[in-house]
């Protein structure tokens, strides 16, 4: 088998997930040993229209980006959404909370807000525009999970991505639960796979890996009551990575 060609594309994002590639260090050489990276703006100048695997970082916020993404999809055999911006829209979906996007632009860009390259539309995740074969969750992604997924792909095997909550990994690490210390942790409804990175360091989970496929938000409301907090506490925590997504609580 000839080496599969990988191309990496970025859309609206901070490029923090690509930075994790660079942080792969030795493993990056291993990766390059089994696959050809044919396009990667952050690290090389070559461009290519031929690739087997397209890796998409970032969310989709402009019409022309939608067109570009559709073109990439039509050329790629496999498409991977990389990082929260791509998998769930991520932080960029915060702007979708506002009805008047012109107001948002004025607030951010001031007098420049009318410039044509700033034309924008509500943020979409990659999956809201094209079919996605694999999701690499997190903000930023977990390097080990990413390389595991790539190896599975190269072997033609479906990677096992957790669909259970962060609490599983948190408890296995022997952490005391942050709820008992007054933090509104989203762990019980957010997809594991990060090794409970935040709670293990004393910080509540803020949901960067997105909801599990069947999160029990009603139970979360009950728990809020039990700890003497209000639903507003929960709402404000859900909005960072959960804006305009089911089952984030609004209103």
């Amino acid at each position, binding site marked *: 088998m000839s080496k599969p060609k990988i191309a990496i594309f970025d859309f609206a994002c901070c490029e923090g997930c690509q930075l994790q590639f660079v942080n792969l260090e030795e493993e990056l050489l*291993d990766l390059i040993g089994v696959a050809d990276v044919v396009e990667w703006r952050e690290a090389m100048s070559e461009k290519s229209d031929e690739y087997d695997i397209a890796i998409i970082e970032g969310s989709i916020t402009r019409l022309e980006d939608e067109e570009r993404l559709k073109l990439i999809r039509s050329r790629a055999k496999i498409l991977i959404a990389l990082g929260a911006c791509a998998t769930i829209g991520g932080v960029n979906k915060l702007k979708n909370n506002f009805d008047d996007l012109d107001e948002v632009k004025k607030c951010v860009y001031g007098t420049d807000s009318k410039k044509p390259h700033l034309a924008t539309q509500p943020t979409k995740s990659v999956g809201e525009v094209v079919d996605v074969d694999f999701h690499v969750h997190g903000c930023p992604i977990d390097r080990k999970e990413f390389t*595991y997924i790539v190896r599975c792909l190269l072997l033609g095997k479906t990677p096992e991505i957790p669909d*259970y909550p962060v609490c599983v990994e948190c*408890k296995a690490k022997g952490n005391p*639960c942050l709820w008992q210390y007054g933090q509104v942790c989203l762990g019980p409804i957010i997809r594991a796979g990060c090794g409970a990175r935040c709670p293990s360091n004393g910080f509540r989970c803020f949901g960067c890996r997105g909801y599990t496929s069947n999160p029990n938000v009603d139970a979360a409301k009950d728990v809020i009551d039990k700890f003497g907090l209000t639903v507003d506490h929960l709402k404000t925590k859900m909005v960072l990575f959960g804006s305009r997504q089911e089952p984030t609580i609004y209103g």
Partner: protein
Amino acid sequence: MSVKKISKDDFAVFVDALIGKTSVIGVQAKGDRFDFAPLESAKDLRLDYDVTLQPPKKYLLPPTEVLMTFEIGGAYHSQYQDQPFVLLGVHPYDMVAINQMDELFQQDNYDTHYMKRRDNATIIACDVVKPSENVFASSMGTAVVRGGYDILLTDVGGAYVVESGTPKGEKLLAEMKGTVADEAALKSRDAVWSKNEKGLNRHELKCDAAYLPRLLEKAYDHPVWAERAKTCFACGSCNQVCPTCYCFNVQDDVNWDLQTGKRERAWDGCLLDGFTKVAGEHEFRNPRSDRFRHRLYRKAKYVPPKIGGQIACVGCGRCVAACLPDIANPVSVYNRLIDDLGIG
């Protein structure tokens, strides 16, 4: 087997000497809680703890472990952790849980990975000094333990009464200072035992634990399962902190040569979505209420026949504390069934 009385200072000297010779895992403070962790000095040891965040199980069945390395289409090599270690400060209920696991992991497929660790372990158990907020070991008959440990320590005020339970323990005991335990010390120990037999009971089961399998015979379609499962996160916290939960998942990962790799197992939990998913995406215990019921049936109906009728919940209370929506407490579920279905 012999029984000694040893002062706390002399015991600390013994522990420090032990640390110099072998790896010692002991109970220590973790913030305002406690947990088992590698012990560096006897002064960090907290035998006055109430309950540990994780049971000592993780030193016998780690959250993740490599079972073997392999070459695709070629040979495989089992991997074992083969270092002796001492578990120091295991409470009776956790000792009972380990005894149950020992029986279970030797049945059917003898689990060489678990047993290798178990054979390498020396267990120093200790009676409870301070009951935890949710312990109900008295209800489960696990407040004191009479076997499985190499050494049992009982705090009788200024000193420990120390009894060996195995030849391994007897050898260790010989290395301790102290005197043959006198009548008064043994009496004080009896008093600790009688106190704990009744006093480790923050939740009180309304029946004899031995009755639970029969209670569950008539409870399969009871509404309590669906009622409770309504607020279940399927977060598996109740499984992850339980000393008698032993389910695991097995997964392979290959190296970058795409030829060699390793097979790992990791803790699983029957409350998790997808726990019963099999080939073809078929899932035979899909509703959360079925899985919620399964855990409580497993503890008191499915496992007992495999371990001579013992109930596979030892009343440590960890799941009670770990469950955010407060639905996992086995006693409150079983008591609810007794209220509705009666005893007998």
